């Protein structure tokens, strides 16, 4: 069953007096537990699509449904609330908060959500730190760990609230090949063990190899949808 449904998603931008069509009516169903890669040349609309899936942007027209809930009609605040509760993000350049420790960075989404007390938050964060193999680094600052370890922290941060979907932007782009393999393996492991849905954009052929479904975007429309 689809946990995420995009119906006729269109997005237009105005550049000066010119209209730019970033997405030209994208229809897409994503099922729970998918390990899905979005690929395509620069300007094909990958970023815009992921922004809309991540509730960071709203479509010009069309509907987006999460678990049957239509999000197209929600305002900015409601979208923010939905994002907070249901979506995890992994960024290309990790984007950890530099003044917070590894543990605090992972605790951050739960602290922002304000639904648990601190001991519960710390307990959950420590569980996920163990899952990504960083328990010995819990109290280090981001600048005191390697790039690969930072990306592990980012993955842990994205997973800590058991989101419906984890969106990852070029998660291996800044990593060396060995570390990139480790990160791909980690994401795959989490995907298999927890049935967490991953949607990631990538140019990395190694990542594409591991994807169970590859969406190819071209000029704002889906050119290919390959299931493996």
């Amino acid at each position, binding site marked *: 069953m689809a946990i995420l449904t995009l119906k006729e998603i269109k997005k237009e931008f105005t550049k000066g007096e010119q209209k730019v069509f970033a997405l030209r009516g994208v229809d897409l169903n994503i099922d729970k537990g998918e390990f899905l890669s979005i690929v395509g040349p620069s300007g094909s609309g*990958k*970023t*815009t699509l*992921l*922004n809309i899936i*991540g509730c*960071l*942007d709203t479509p010009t027209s069309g509907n987006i449904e999460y678990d049957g809930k239509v999000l197209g009609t929600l305002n900015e*605040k409601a979208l*923010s*609330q939905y*994002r*907070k*509760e249901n979506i995890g*993000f992994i*960024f290309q*350049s990790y*984007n950890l*908060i*530099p*003044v*917070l420790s590894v543990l*605090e960075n992972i605790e*951050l*989404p739960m*602290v*922002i*959500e304000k639904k648990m007390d601190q001991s519960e938050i710390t307990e959950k964060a420590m569980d996920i730190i163990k899952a990504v193999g960083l328990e010995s680094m819990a109290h280090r600052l981001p600048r005191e760990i390697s790039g690969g370890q930072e990306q592990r922290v980012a993955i842990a*941060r994205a997973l800590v609230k058991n989101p419906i979907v984890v*969106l990852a*932007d070029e998660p291996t782009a800044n990593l060396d090949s060995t570390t990139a393999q480790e990160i791909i393996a980690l994401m795959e492991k989490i995907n298999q063990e927890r049935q967490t849905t991953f949607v990631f*954009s990538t140019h990395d052929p190694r990542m594409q190899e591991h994807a169970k479904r590859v969406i190819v975007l071209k000029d704002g429309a889906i050119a290919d949808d390959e299931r493996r």
Partner: protein
Amino acid sequence: MNMLIKIAFRNLLRHKWRTLLTGIVIAFGLWIYLFMDSVMSGLDRGSIDNMINLSTSAVKIHTAEFDKERESFPLNYGLTNIAALEKHLAGHERVKACAPRTQFLGELSNYEESMPVIGTIIEPKQDSMVFSLTEYLKGNYFSEHGVNEIILGKDLARDMNVAIGDNITLFALTKYESHNAEDFIVIGLFHTTDPTLNKSGAYITFKDANTFLDLENTVTELNVQLKRRINLDDLEQDMKQVRAYIDKQFPKLATYTFIELGAGVLELVKQKKAWGVGMTLVFLLIAAVGIVNSVLMSVYERVREVGVLRALGLEGREIVRMFMLEGTMIGFFGSFVGVLLGCITIFVLTTVGYPLDVIYKDMYVDTAGFPYWGTIYGEWNVPLIIGTFLFGIATAFLASIYPARKAATMSVIQAIRFF
């Protein structure tokens, strides 16, 4: 909220030099203000006290006739009801003492050259209860049995080339407007805070003046000293009360308080205070620009961080709160240090003082139009200190609004450059 405080605080530590410099600007502005206020208040109060204690007294009473011609110091309009006046004044709780005085114009000669003087005739014992001439005196004060003794200003004595123990001749018109001259022995020299008094002041007693000027104990002014008040406004209130008290019983007399006699000085005090406030506002404006700059820099450096926080669900108002916390923390730090330094400085000023006479040696210090000499003691103004502290924090708080709002209204997508 704890997480926001943690992030804000750690970011300040992360950029400690920037935080320190911005805090120092605030601290410096507040410190200068508190220092200046304490010194200026002490200086103003010292100047006012000196004028009251040396020449004007707190309340001065003349006859109405004398008042009309007082520029020429006439000797024939004396107060006729001194005893009744003194008795009446003794009944007021704020009155400390009264002293009669009579002033006259004369000329002093050392047999080679002569100089004009403003003579003041006093009742030595009573006068020292009201005025503090003895505090500035070198040599002797008037003795009980002394005859034709005179006390001169130090500068006058220097110009006349006379010293303690020398004889000098005093010329003046008597009460009946005939010329008279008398030799006096210089028993003391005073060096007060009033350069005019030092250059042209001469004091003799009523006992000698009765013979010299046919004075017949004519008293042209009764000077009233009031009990000390720390607060100048309270002192002004006392003066008004005492004048009303005199006017009620003696409505025909001309009664003046220091509020009129020292109107120029009081006006200068107010103007200086306004300047002080103006200067502080300039300092705080500079500090505010510093805070805006500092928080804006922080915002621009952390665009991506703001984007991440927004993506993770932090709301715009929480972003505003986080950056405003940063700005306000700088303000708190700066205000705390500034007020602490201010309090230490005021403590030193109120206990040790600022010895003008030692620092400037024999130079007179003209403090914006009225003289001061000796040691300036600072004054504590607790409400002002608290107000300054809160004002520093409020300035920082207000200065943080703009950059904080800027951070909160950033486009999440642009901030994060997510995909």
